[in-house]
């Protein structure tokens, strides 16, 4: 088979296509976005009629995928780690209903928070939901494990979680693909009550899930994704999870390891293998690109067994992603360093693009708020979060998707009037609409600014579920017509926009202002494509 040069994300997408999925569901989120984008761009996926559209949020995506599984077909759902918080209700309960068609959930974690607000480890969710979990160490494994995950899901009638991290997701290498499978036929679950989680049924289903744990552990022992690699120096045994195995290998020339290593790629952990390593070595080093999940289990609360080294005893840093040098230090190896960075090299933080509409919107907001003083703008997750930094310093919060509107409600209830919420169009339909309904029912004295750049900007300009629908949604939620205003965020309308914002700040109820201008990046892309099409025609 020919090797394709694929990102980890793309390897997963290709495997899903080859694995016979009938649909993929997702909300954009770094570092998971490219999985859906790859399927959307795939000719094979189009020819095979694979459903590949963005969902409004991760919860709706998870539920739609579960519905496809109910109907007997294979489905994939993808999200970044914090997206799994949004989908958690559906995710945890999908473990109780179980799957019909193969159902694979991809959670892309972001240790070191390259593009995220935390570095939570999705393996906790897998354990919490009591489902099998796979953690690839490289892009080839990402492909192979995805294929295996669908098979495992159907064999055990259970959803399977695939956990990856940023480096794997966004690193490219040659990947060998295997023979494609056909899509499943429509087939209802044998038991039509399987998905009805009434307490009496849920209790039975839950006991079934608990009963499957032994089988899941057996699968982890048999799949080959967990294995012990022999090493002569048994003073130390190493458990290497997922990607960390590569950083370990990098410290030895020709891939010759000196200590016994248990390479982990599938959960729940096969206890026999863990025990074999533990019994044969003096000390254990645990390498995890994320939270110390296994390390904590191995130490136990009292830590009275063998010495366990890792993130909890300071052998490795407590936070952040691993790399070859950090792992080398843990092995007692000395590393070369290049020269130091000269002092004159300055930081270059990300910023809003030149010509970005958000810039004009926040300049107007800052001026309108000047007389009230700083510290009353709650915001959200998107490009506009960058307005917290200099020179704008326009916003005071960024917590989770949709929190701008609801935090403004609470702050206004506490007496911070006026309070402002600034949220993007895609974030608004992701998780802002219900908050706005609360505000209307509460008649909160807040000014909600929906920054409408008509795309999901930060992740690279994916279609926004909100496109062309915001005004009607806001109306439908009950905001009164005279307090819904669309602004043109351009320098030439600055004074006009300041006046409108000032007026609405004084209103003692819910106002919604919608600065609307297309994202400069998507606009440029469209123009380039147009120009290209023109030259091609000539």
């Amino acid at each position, binding site marked *: 088979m020919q*090797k394709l*040069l694929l*990102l980890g994300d793309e390897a997963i997408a290709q495997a899903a296509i080859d694995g016979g999925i009938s649909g993929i569901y997702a909300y954009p989120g*770094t*570092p998971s*976005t*490219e999985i859906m984008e790859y399927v959307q761009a795939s000719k094979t996926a189009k020819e095979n009629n694979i459903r590949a559209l963005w969902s409004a949020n991760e919860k709706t995506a998870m539920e739609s995928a579960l519905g496809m599984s109910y109907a007997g077909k294979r489905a994939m759902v993808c999200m970044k780690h914090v997206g799994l918080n949004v989908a958690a209700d559906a995710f945890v309960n999908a473990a109780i209903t179980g799957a019909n068609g193969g159902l694979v959930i991809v959670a892309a974690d972001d240790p070191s928070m*390259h*593009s995220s607000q935390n570095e939570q480890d999705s393996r906790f969710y897998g354990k919490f939901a009591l489902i099998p979990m796979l953690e690839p160490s490289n892009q080839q494994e990402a492909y192979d494990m995805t294929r295996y995950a669908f098979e495992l899901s159907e064999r055990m009638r259970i959803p399977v979680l695939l956990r990856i991290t940023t*480096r*794997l997701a*966004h*690193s*490219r*290498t*040659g990947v060998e693909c295997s023979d494609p499978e056909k899509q499943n036929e429509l087939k209802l679950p044998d038991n039509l009550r399987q998905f009805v989680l009434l307490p009496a049924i849920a209790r039975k289903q839950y006991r079934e899930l608990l009963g499957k744990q032994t089988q899941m552990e057996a699968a982890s022992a048999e799949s080959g994704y967990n294995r012990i690699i022999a090493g002569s120096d048994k003073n130390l045994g190493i458990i290497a999870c997922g*990607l960390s195995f*590569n*950083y370990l*290998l*990098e410290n030895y020339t*020709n*891939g010759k390891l000196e200590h016994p290593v248990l390479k982990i790629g599938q959960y729940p952990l096969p206890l026999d293998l863990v025990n074999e390593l533990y019994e044969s070595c003096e000390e254990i080093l645990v390498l995890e690109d994320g939270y110390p999940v296994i390390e904590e289990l191995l130490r136990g609360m009292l830590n009275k067994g063998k010495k366990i080294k890792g993130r909890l005893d300071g052998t490795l840093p407590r936070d952040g992603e691993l*790399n*070859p*040098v950090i792992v*080398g230090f843990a092995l007692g190896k000395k*590393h*070369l*360093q*290049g*020269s*130091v*960075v*000269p002092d*004159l*090299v*300055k*930081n*270059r*933080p*990300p*910023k*809003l*693009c030149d010509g970005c509409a958000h810039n004009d919107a926040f300049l107007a907001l800052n001026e309108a708020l000047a007389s009230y003083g700083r510290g009353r703008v709650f915001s959200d997750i998107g*490009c506009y979060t*960058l307005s917290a930094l200099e020179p704008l310093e326009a916003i005071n919060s960024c917590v989770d998707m949709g929190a701008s509107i609801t935090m403004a409600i609470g702050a206004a209830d506490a007496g911070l009037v006026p309070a402002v919420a600034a949220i993007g169009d895609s974030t608004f339909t992701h998780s802002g609409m219900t908050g706005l309904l609360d505000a209307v029912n509460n008649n909160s004295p807040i000014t909600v600014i929906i920054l409408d750049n008509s795309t999901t900007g*930060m*992740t*690279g300009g994916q279609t926004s579920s909100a496109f062309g629908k915001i005004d009607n949604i806001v109306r439908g939620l009950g905001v009164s017509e005279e307090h819904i205003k669309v602004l043109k965020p351009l320098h030439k309308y600055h004074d006009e926009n300041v006046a409108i914002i000032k007026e609405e700040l004084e209103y003692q109820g819910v106002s919604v202002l919608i600065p609307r201008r297309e994202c400069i990046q998507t606009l440029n892309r469209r123009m380039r494509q147009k120009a*290209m099409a023109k*030259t*091609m025609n000539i």
Partner: protein
Amino acid sequence: MKKDIILAGVGGQGILSIAACIGLAALEESLFLKQAEVHGMSQRGGAVQSNLRLSSDPVASDLIPAGKADLIIAVEPMESLRYLPMLDHSGWIITSINPFINITDYPEMEQLMKEIWKLPRYITLDANSMAKDCGNIKAANMVVLGAATPFLGLEYSSIESAVKKLFNNKGDEIIELNLKAVQMGREHALKQM
């Protein structure tokens, strides 16, 4: 054969196109490669880098260990210095001297160049002017790629065929322009080495 390369620049300057060209050329020579890219937040005018590893043996880590890079290829002079701790003491820096100034405390050009000239092994080039001479300033990244070609351990013909592949759907004129840009950068580097 092993080449560990750091590509450096500012979001939007086209370092991923350089990476793609080198990657395609390496594939043509049946080498193993891993290329870690930066996507997401920092793409918005922030400092971006990519780790590109080529080898005749399988590559383990997606990230280059500090102090082990053979080459830093930068499309911006200040960015060429940001990853010095990654560079092996015998490594080369290939950098454009055209600054991308989007911060208020950007250093004086003269001071910046002095820091680069202190390094033992470097190639500096005015990629923007050279790209303009070729017909389009947007090809500046390809000029920088060209200047790196003598250090990559790859056949020049593999690079040329990679450029053709990368710009395949953009028409012959664009392909020719980019090939010329790569050639111009290469000749400059060969003279300066």
